[in-house]
């Protein structure tokens, strides 16, 4: 199963949600933000190398951590050398080998968001209680609809509840994830909060979000 995590707007917590879902769904998290990657990386081949034809997708997956990650390179030159048309096949290859894949998609509505949506079985939209964030969530939800990537759940980040209008407009159950500084502390050390602070308030939100995805039978 391939699950695309999309937000439309940057800074709403897409990468954090992808990492937390990867932990709970026992999935490989692919950092598909080609020019502004932010999931932890280490020495070795990354998505830039995969999309430039220098490495296979499988050898670029970092196993052994609390979450398996296919990281993305950080250089602009590496991002320029990417052939985005290889991204769909790369995600399929990781899914064939590992089973479940969570794709941390870039902000905006460019091809590095469209290609994951085209191969994804479902998506999760991440948004936050701010009008611009919600407007972008609606746009990217429409993009997902055109690629037939069903919306499994809405992650309403840094909030204590989900307004009815959000669920009604986006057309999927919403899960509120409370603001929680342990999430930031965990991310600074490269971990999902669920691995370091399982009892933190946000961890309960992420668990409920994973349950909502599982409830779709994916």
């Amino acid at each position: 199963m391939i699950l695309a995590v999309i937000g439309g707007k940057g800074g709403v917590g897409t990468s954090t949600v992808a990492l937390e879902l990867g932990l709970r769904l026992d999935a490989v998290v692919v950092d598909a933000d080609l020019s502004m990657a932010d999931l932890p990386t280490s020495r070795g081949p990354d998505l830039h190398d995969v999309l430039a034809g220098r490495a296979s997708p499988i050898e670029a997956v970092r196993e052994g951590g609390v979450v398996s990650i296919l990281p993305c390179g950080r250089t602009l030159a590496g991002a320029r050398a990417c052939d985005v048309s290889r991204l769909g096949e790369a995600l399929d290859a990781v899914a064939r080998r590992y089973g479940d894949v969570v794709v941390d998609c870039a902000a905006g509505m460019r091809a590095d968001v469209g290609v994951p949506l085209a191969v994804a079985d479902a998506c999760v939209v991440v948004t936050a209680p701010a009008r611009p964030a919600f407007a972008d969530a609606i746009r990217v939800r429409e993009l997902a609809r055109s690629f037939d990537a069903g919306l499994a759940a809405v992650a309403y980040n840094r909030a204590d509840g989900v307004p009815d209008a959000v669920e009604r407009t986006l057309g999927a159950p919403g899960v509120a994830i409370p603001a929680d500084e342990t999430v930031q502390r965990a991310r600074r050390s490269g971990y999902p909060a669920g691995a370091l602070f399982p009892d933190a308030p946000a961890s309960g939100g992420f668990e409920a979000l994973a349950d909502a995805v599982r409830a779709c039978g994916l």
Partner: protein
Amino acid sequence: MSIKVDSTARDHGGVTLVTAVVRNEDDVDRRVRVTNELDGVVRPPTQDGVAVEGWDADGFEGVVPGGGTRALGYACGGAPADEPCRVAWTERTGADEKGPATVADALRDLDDPRPPVESGPSKRSAADPVPPAVAVWLGDVADRVDTGTASEADRRALEAVDERLRTLAGGP
């Protein structure tokens, strides 16, 4: 048949350019398949490196509106002939037959996510990276193509270079 195609082919420096007008004399929209009859694969029009919707290595498939026309054009390696393409089949179209968007749609319709070239440290390699002898040879070939005097040897040499580049780039 209610679908007619007028096509012409002409040689342009070793490459054959085919133009065709598909005419639908029916009152209703029809889906048509136009296939290439020349010896060689179709090099279709591309957008962002992906074939324009409806094109593949054998030809084109798409809808021609009732009483309307559709203009097609492609390049091909084979020598020109009188009827470079033909209508393979036609059928009536459904009201809403387009399925969900695909990876090719994403690449074609959405913006390229790569950062602009100016963002990279490219100033260091400002010198022309093409060896002078190669640049001179390519310039000569380009001149011959422009004046329509390119030879079969030019065409074969360019194909060999193309194949070598694809091998170096790790492509098929």
